[in-house]
């Protein structure tokens, strides 16, 4: 492959249109237009149950479920890795279903039952998945770990419930807790330290024990 050619080619596309230009020398950047005042921040009351405990919060409508947990309830086990649904570190379970808590507003969770990593187990009384992660070294820096564990617990539940996945050859079949299934279903949880192979072993152990 002629790499020299590759790097030499102009990035200018074959499609030539009203391309933006960086040639302007003076530019002004303001995402907000000056003038009319911003609407006043709105706050609302929301009541939710977190790890079995009821909490009532008076909260800015802009506050995500993740920030409500981390900053208001000081449950910092759920992590903010990207705040844009691109990493999975914020994974919690709402009514037993795993979601990215960074992409959900706290005020949308009136009456909901939230389970976070702190609700699964404690250092003295680990949940079987937490214990399996320790045994199989399913983590390194630990920052994605709570999200991985919440996801892992939920994934085994999803497989049991028959939720289909991209790894299935036949989507009408019942899924099994195979390596390929678990890898695919865990792919919304990024681990930059690269503990994937060990996480799979931890999950396999827990899946086997509960099968």
């Amino acid at each position, binding site marked *: 492959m002629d790499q020299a050619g590759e790097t030499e080619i102009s*990035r200018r596309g074959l499609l030539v*249109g*009203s391309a933006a230009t960086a040639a302007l020398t003076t530019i002004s950047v303001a995402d907000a237009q000056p003038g009319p005042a911003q609407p006043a921040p709105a706050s609302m009351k929301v009541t939710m149950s977190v790890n079995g405990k009821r909490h009532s919060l008076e909260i*800015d*409508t802009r506050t995500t479920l993740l920030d409500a947990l981390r900053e208001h309830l000081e449950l910092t086990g759920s992590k903010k890795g990207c705040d844009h649904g691109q990493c999975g570190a914020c994974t919690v379970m709402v009514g037993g279903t795993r979601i990215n808590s960074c*992409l959900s507003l706290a005020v949308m969770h009136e009456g909901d039952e939230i389970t976070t990593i702190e609700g699964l187990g404690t250092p003295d009384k680990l949940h079987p998945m937490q214990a399996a992660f320790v045994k199989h070294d399913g983590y390194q820096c630990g920052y994605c770990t709570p999200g991985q564990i919440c996801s892992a617990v939920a994934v085994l539940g999803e497989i049991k419930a028959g939720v289909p996945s991209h790894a299935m050859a036949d989507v009408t079949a019942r899924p099994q807790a195979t390596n390929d299934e678990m890898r695919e279903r865990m792919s919304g949880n990024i681990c930059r330290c690269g503990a994937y192979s060990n996480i799979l072993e931890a999950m396999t152990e827990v899946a086997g024990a509960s099968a």
Partner: protein
Amino acid sequence: MKPFTYERAKTPAEAAAAVARTPGAKFIAGGTNLLDLMKLEIETPTHLVDIQDLKLDRIEPTSGGGLRIGAFATNTATASDPRVRRDYGVLTRAIVAGASGQLRNKATTAGNLLQRTRCPYFYDPNMPCNKRKPGSGCSALGGYSRQLGIVGTSDACIATYPGDMAQAMRVLDASVETVDPQGQTRSIPIGDFHRLWGDTPHIETNLRRGELITGVTLPRPLGGQHFYQKVRDRASYAYALVSVAAVIQPDGSGRFAVGGIAPKPWRVAAADAAMPQGAKAAAAALLAGARPTEDNRFKVPLVERTLAAVMAEAKAA
């Protein structure tokens, strides 16, 4: 994120009216794309109308032998529904090829149809972008455009519609059901739902102000074999470089739509008709008039090769 007020509507018509009467109001369903964009102030609603209480999450048969999927049905619920899995396999396959388990648990039918482009210039508020700021220019033209569109694009915008679910719905000839602030309902064929960018890339669908999606109707099952093949750099949790949604009948006839290449799920009647002649002919018909950039020219052969993979799988089965 700009401040906004928030309400939970009780009925679809009430929700539509609430959005219509409040300047800057928007519906929120799963919120997975809207909140993402609000954090960057690419979306700046002043008021959010939450549709979670509208009971729009049902999946039920239609009198015509099809299936109606509620606007608020989650992607997971739709993909898991036994009727969808059995009769509309392409839809289950498309949904589970998208995003992650967590996101699919929150993302909804309506929200997924309205998912905005993943063009990196659209996502960076410092960059000129005609879609984000009409008239500011298109940074992707002459920029980094590997992920972007090759067909149906314009001189003003080369972004793609990034979703997977809609590719399958396009193949299935689904209709998008809506209600407007006056309570009037209408049904929009999915092929007419998304707009080509033209000179107005900031207008992405043919929905009117305050018009609320209530569901998507699938016609009677097509039979045949169902495929959704998604091509991407990493094995999961990535947007499609190219995806092919296809339903292929035993005689080799069929229909297909391609994702990752255009402002909307890209399906061309002549391309469907050419399927019996093979992937080369069908892909050529699909991509007539394609205008790739240097960065994404590879999508032209990739569409053909991915379609060939699907056809080979159909033949082998």
